[in-house]
């Protein structure tokens, strides 16, 4: 965008490279340390591991309860995102397409939730889940995630649907299709790009969330990945080789998915928050 000369270009590339090194170093460190023995971590911090021993991984995988945690995180994130997409696309659709009483009021009411920190309401949420016998359950966590995801998803999908011409739906309506059929057969397929963005943003957010599992989940067999790592970090403090392996195991899969889908991520995340 700027017109920069040779010197300017060099400066830009040097600054960006330094920044990338700053980002890559911590990840590289845990990855390298995950193959070392504790002795090696202490004595030769800058050298590569003497052997690529995967023993740390085996031990961390077992003692951090990661298999269980991965399944829980996957179940909770997927079902929550599914719920958010179904409920929000329905709401967004009628707000975008139909005139009805309180339409704008309902929309504004939903929009207010965009920047409302749901964590502040954790005490009543805790008490209510307790009353519904949903405390310390994955279902309880999913219900909370769906409810707190509705604002953002509805907002983004409604705005996207506003941009889709209504003619196709009009002709289907004249042919006698019910609103439900039109929604399923015409509106949903056309909204797919927005749904991918909403799905991805929510999936990452829920996968990464720590606060709600910390409060709502108590049993080890229901914990999510961030919670499992947090407990492991407390129990195995100072066993840095195992902590490194556990951290690598929790970070690498997300990184791989990110590198594969970075186009959607970058479009989705920035789109979501600001525009």
């Amino acid at each position: 965008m700027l017109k920069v000369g040779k010197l300017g270009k060099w400066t830009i590339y040097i600054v960006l490279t330094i920044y990338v090194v700053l980002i890559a170093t911590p990840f590289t460190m845990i990855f390298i340390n995950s193959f070392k023995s504790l002795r090696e971590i202490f004595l030769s911090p800058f050298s590569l591991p003497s052997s690529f021993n995967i023993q740390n991984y085996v031990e961390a995988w077992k003692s951090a309860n990661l298999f269980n945690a991965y399944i829980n995180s996957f179940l909770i994130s997927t079902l929550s995102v599914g719920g958010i997409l179904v409920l929000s696309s329905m709401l967004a659709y009628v707000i975008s397409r139909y005139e009805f009483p309180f339409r704008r009021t309902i929309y504004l009411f939903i929009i207010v939730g965009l920047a409302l920190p749901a964590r502040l309401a954790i005490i009543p949420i805790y008490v209510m889940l307790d009353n519904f016998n949903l405390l310390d359950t994955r279902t309880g966590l999913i219900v909370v995630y769906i409810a707190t995801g509705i604002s953002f998803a509805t907002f983004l999908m409604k705005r996207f649907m506003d941009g889709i011409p209504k003619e196709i739906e009009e002709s289907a309506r004249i042919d006698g299709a019910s609103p439900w059929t039109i929604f399923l057969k015409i509106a949903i397929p056309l909204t797919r790009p927005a749904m991918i963005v909403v799905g991805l943003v929510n999936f990452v957010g829920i996968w990464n969330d720590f606060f709600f599992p910390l409060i709502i989940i108590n049993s080890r067999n229901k914990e999510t990945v961030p919670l499992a790592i947090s407990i492991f970090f407390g129990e195995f403090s100072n066993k840095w080789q195992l902590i490194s392996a556990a951290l690598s195991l929790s970070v690498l899969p997300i990184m791989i998915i990110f590198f594969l889908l970075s186009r959607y991520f970058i479009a989705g995340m920035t789109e979501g928050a600001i525009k």
Partner: protein
Amino acid sequence: MSIKKKYILLFVLPALTLYVTFVIYPFIYSFILSFYRWPGAGARTFVGLQNFKDVLFGSFGSEFRNAFLHNIYYFILVTILELGLGFLLAIFLVSIVKGKRFFQMMVYLPNIISMILVGFIWSMMLNPQIGLVNQILNHIGLGVLARPWLGDPNLALNTVIAVNVWRNLGFYVLVFTASLLDIPRELLEAAYIDGASNFKVITKILFPLTLPTFQTLSILLFIWTFNVFDIVYALEGAQAGPFRSTDVLGTLFYRTAFGGLGSSRADFGLGAAVAVLIFVVVMPLSLVYAYIVDRRSRNA
């Protein structure tokens, strides 16, 4: 007509019910709870404004003020660093062609990792015994700069903020990149033809035209700052040590409501009072944000 009404209810009610039950109602419920003393089980005792008195002026007063001031400090520093550096790096990114996608991807990478995991990774990096940060400093002869980054009460909050910036900066870079790319190229061309320097182009064109982005982001940052919890919890624990020097309202709220070892009085009523006070600070900005978002989407 009646069929349409039925459909509208069918489409609106599921989402709206869940939203009201688990988002709106809990906020109202918090207000009610804040007037009670309640350890979470058993009977509640109505105590009027006592919880607010305790939190603001009483036994919790100094702790609350301490955390609140940390939040304000956090907000100011994070805003300057993340928005300032984000804007600058975004200008760099849009001014190059080769490697642009690679840099975009790398810059954004830390943002997709859970804040709590980022905290644990950095608590290793900053560990006084095995931490790479001090080891590198010692190695290159700058050993005098080695510090107990997380253990020194005068440094700890700044360290926490630095880790926060490390993780989140990429997000702001990409938002500014998107907003810079919306600026019509002809404006820049015309300025260059008139002999404007890069500095002039940045200060007279790029900055004013991205000002709305600065505004929106600062509002969000203010709200998000009052949500800070994970990073402090990962680096310094629920006690926000050393000596509460990294305590923010998020960790204080957690301790008052859910105990978190060593809190003098874990109580849902007291916790709710803390939540209500944070809410009162944050709510006006949440409304401003909703207003901006609504106005913008109607103009689009």
